[in-house]
């Protein structure tokens, strides 16, 4: 009798496993098709992109398209701009975000709750509702078509969620450690720097990845505030390229792949922390 129920349990488990794993795998295959198709189109001869029947295996692999794009001065420029914009945004947002998250997490302030609610509201502010004043103000203060202007507005849109995520992390770290350090003669900033920040590293890495991906992929602000390739990021380059060479799917997909490579690398490296940050009750 015990064996019978054991067996039934095992059969149940087996069916359950087959069901769960196959359904997830099937979903993953469907969901990844566009990505595989992009990379596939980026690396095969020009005649093979839109053939009947479509071929998953290229008759020959070619890096010709990607190579010619990397050698192209214009697209290298876009790439460099995207790098500068993303890294600078990351730096501004992390400094302001860490300080603010620390303030909200460790002090009871008059009106602190309302400030937090305000930040929550800013978090949800759609970018598109501010493009009109940004466009005008950027002209007025001379930041139109400049990397700096783009970095500042990018930061403003990603900072709220950054404060929110980091505050969540800091709330979970006991305050006793810092107090002990301060009794031992550390100043508050030193305690923050030496005790809290190292403990919050997973949270900072997760949030930082989030910020970088956001800044790298930002499109609307860039299209609003820039006008020449000298200050435009890759996303704009991609859209412009698509508009210009509509038929050349190999090169379009090659550029799209190149644009995505840094993100895929970062994602593979830091995925764990991003997921951790997002699942540890960031939205509450």
């Amino acid at each position, binding site marked *: 009798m015990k064996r019978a129920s054991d067996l039934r349990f095992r059969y149940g488990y087996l069916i359950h496993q087959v069901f769960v794993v196959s359904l997830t795998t099937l979903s993953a295959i469907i969901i990844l098709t566009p990505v595989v198709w992009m990379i596939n189109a980026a690396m095969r001869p020009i005649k093979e992109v839109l053939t009947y029947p479509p071929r998953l295996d290229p008759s020959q692999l070619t890096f010709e398209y990607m190579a010619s794009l990397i050698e192209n001065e214009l697209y290298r420029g876009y790439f460099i701009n995207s790098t500068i914009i993303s890294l600078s945004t990351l730096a501004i947002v992390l400094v302001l975000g860490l*300080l603010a998250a620390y303030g909200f997490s460790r002090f009871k302030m008059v009106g602190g709750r309302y400030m937090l609610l305000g930040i929550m509201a800013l978090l*949800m502010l759609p970018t598109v509702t501010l493009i009109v004043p940004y466009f005008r103000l950027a002209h007025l203060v001379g930041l139109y078509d400049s990397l700096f202007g783009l970095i500042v507005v990018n930061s403003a849109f990603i900072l709220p969620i950054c404060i929110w995520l980091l505050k969540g992390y800091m709330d979970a770290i006991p305050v006793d450690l810092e107090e002990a350090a301060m009794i031992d003669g550390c100043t508050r900033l030193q305690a923050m720097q030496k005790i809290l920040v190292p403990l919050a590293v997973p949270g900072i890495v997760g949030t930082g990845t989030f910020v970088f991906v956001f800044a790298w992929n930002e499109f609307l602000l860039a299209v609003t505030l820039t006008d020449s390739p000298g200050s435009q990021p890759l996303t704009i380059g991609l859209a412009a390229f698509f508009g210009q060479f509509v038929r050349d799917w190999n090169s379009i997909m090659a550029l799209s792949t190149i644009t995505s490579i840094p993100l895929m690398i970062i994602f593979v490296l830091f995925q764990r922390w991003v997921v951790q940050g997002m699942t540890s009750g960031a939205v509450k």
Partner: protein
Amino acid sequence: MGEKGAHQPSSPEMTVKVTEAQSARQGPPSTRRVLPREMYGFLFVGPAILFFILVSIFPLLRTFQMSLIDVEAGIPLFVGIRHYAELVQDPWFWSSLTNAFVFTVASVILHIFIGMVLAILLNETWFSTTLRNIMRGLLILPWVFSTASAGLMWTLLYHPFGLLNYLWVGLLGQEMPIEFLAKPGLAMASVVAVNTWKAYPFYMIIILGGLQAIPPELYEAAKVDGANAGRRFWHVTLPQLRPILIAISTIDIITTVGHVDLIRMLTRGGPLRSTETVAYYIYKTALLDGNLGYGAAVSTLMLIMVAILIIVYLRLVSRGSESGETSF
């Protein structure tokens, strides 16, 4: 902390000693407490708040102001509510509202539905945790790509000679390829599909976090009471996920309503303006047609709608704090 009491003595003996306390505060032991603790917090929060005031809130106010003026030939001209009066009679504005509504409702339902299904699958017990983690990574992947890249990937799939039409014509034996992005009725559905693909991972991960936070005892108890999987989902999972579902649907509605880049990449509002949402209408009137005042008026109306949603949401969240549901 006992510092608050030192500033505002409440008991009679302390009132007598208040002068002594004040003089003592200037003494050596308390020099590090010159700033009251509340003020100290502002030092840390201040830079970010200042940044928000300059870069978010000031431009926000400018949106209202700009909706009342016309910039023609560089000279701002006050026109009052003329833009709003025009707006009410503008059929394209109303059609863009309808389109935005369809786009948003369809996207949000699909994001949360797909996110929920996949999160539940990932939250099951797997024979191999490594395999599960790999699957989780693969399923998050679409989130990493830029909307520009996503738009291009899907434009290729939707192409009359693309993969989807191969399945349609080549395998199902249909005569004509489907013009996914060029047929008025179908274009919106195609855009929604891309948006679903691009954004579901974010919601999937948050729902997964919510599922992991549900105490297993609740399921055990439900099992003992004889509840099947469906009933456990309805009576345990859903109520436990309620705060998270409220949060993500609000965030999702507002993010989706604001999408411009996706529509810009896929259809540019066409065909026959059937995918032109309010957000794209703002972008088009203000930046492409150069009608800043009118664009600002549409932005203001959109802001009001978003603000109503945010207020309702924050109300819900604040109420949750009393029952300990949220971190406020």
